[in-house]
């Protein structure tokens, strides 16, 4: 079971393609850069 869970953990790490990347410049040649967000809803930092 432990072995299985470890493998799942590793595979989950590998499958993180939708994770955020650090800031980087866009490649050249685009017509515009769409910057989008949703559901800001107040707090994004710990309160205290």
């Amino acid at each position, binding site marked *: 079971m432990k072995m299985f869970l470890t493998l799942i953990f590793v595979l989950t790490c590998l499958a993180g393609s939708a994770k955020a990347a650090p800031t980087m410049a866009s490649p050249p040649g685009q017509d515009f850069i769409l910057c*989008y967000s949703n559901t800001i809803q107040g707090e994004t930092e710990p309160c205290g």
Partner: protein
Amino acid sequence: MGGLSKKAYELELLGKQSKAPLLLLDGGSLLFTQDNLSPNRAAQARITADGIVAAYNYMGFKAVGIATADLATGLEFLKEIRDRSKFAWLSANLVQADTRQPIFQEGIQLEVGKLKIAVLGLTEERADQFLDKNAGAVILPWQEVLPGLVKRFSNKADLIILLSSYAQADNKKIAEQVPGINIILQAGPGARNLEPELAAGSLLLQVAPRGKQQGVCDVFWHASKVWQPDPTAELLAKEANVGRTRQQIVNFDRQEKASGYLSKNPAAKQAYEFLKGQLPDQEKKLAALRKNVESMKIGPREKARYGNRFIDLEKSRPDQPEVLAIVEKTKQQANLAARPAAPGPAREQPSYAGWRACATCHQRQADNWEKSRHAGALGTLTAKGQGRNLDCIPCHVTSVLTGNEPEALSLAADLQQVGCEACHGPGKQHIIDPAKWPLTRNPGEEICRRCHRPEHDDGFEFKSKLDRLGCPAGLH
């Protein structure tokens, strides 16, 4: 609202680094944390909403979709907010019940670089239940308004973007049934980071909620208005995967060298071997993809392309000073606006005893707790000038539940911490007859997770925290 200054910094940086113009849009649910707010909380929430709008004004947002949570303090407030916004609030299906005329703008047309871009908005029908029945407003099904709207704008726009607070399944139906929408920005329930997805002719984009991340999509438009998946996105994802694999192998090697970790742990050893076996094949595929992407960049553009990524608005990133000032000022104002639920002396909660009552029997545990950060939880909030912020308070005291936050401002002194009963449950009956009214002896992780949620505590790890905070063994 602390992440706004990070967002402003990243967007400013992106603008300086890129020759192409930026178009800043928000899918919706900008203003409030809940779909329905009690009058007690509305005053403070409106101040925060005003601050968010001031920050969006500064950043240069062009349009925001109207979603359910934006209606939480009523339609009239949203109209006031609209009048203070330098960007458009969009909803084609939030209409006057009698005339069926839209209350806000259905869409706008913008000139972005050389392109004419139409931005339209749709509000999820679930929002209808939160509309004040006296406001004379209803939310129509998208089928009634969207086809005609898209037709009107498609004559004059090169590209149409829809801000939608519908769920992804509905957005896919929209894409299938209403041709001509080129991009759908999703802000519906259950939103999280998603790799862009093509549905019929539309590109669906979605970023995680609560402003922790920023979606960025480079658009290389083409007159055919047909999307071709940009291999750059796949390349970046594959590069990140290979980087992670390499790093994990290095970490395993380091642990093995330090403590013989792999030799002692067969499961870890198997994972290590698996990673090492995968790496050459991953590197080979990455090299092939890189070559392919390079050749595509040289060739002529035959279809529209895109490259999408998500910027992490981490705490360690710098703040944009002007937006930070807006955030700080707003927090101060919101903090001052909070009022106790009822005036008068400090009140005890009906079923909570307070930590000193617990200590009369469980002194060792109380001594341990007093050294912890839980004992000073409200103090950390007060030190940040947020001691009356109703969004924050429930997690910094004992006994206050969401929906009842103003109670926190008149709590008894022994409940103005994250005390014993925050984890073990209310103990007033327990102190009278412990045998008859036993408490939860070992509260589980889910109790902690009520407050240590990812949006407040990214790095929360139950076991290590329990090791530091857990009560000493034994009853007394």
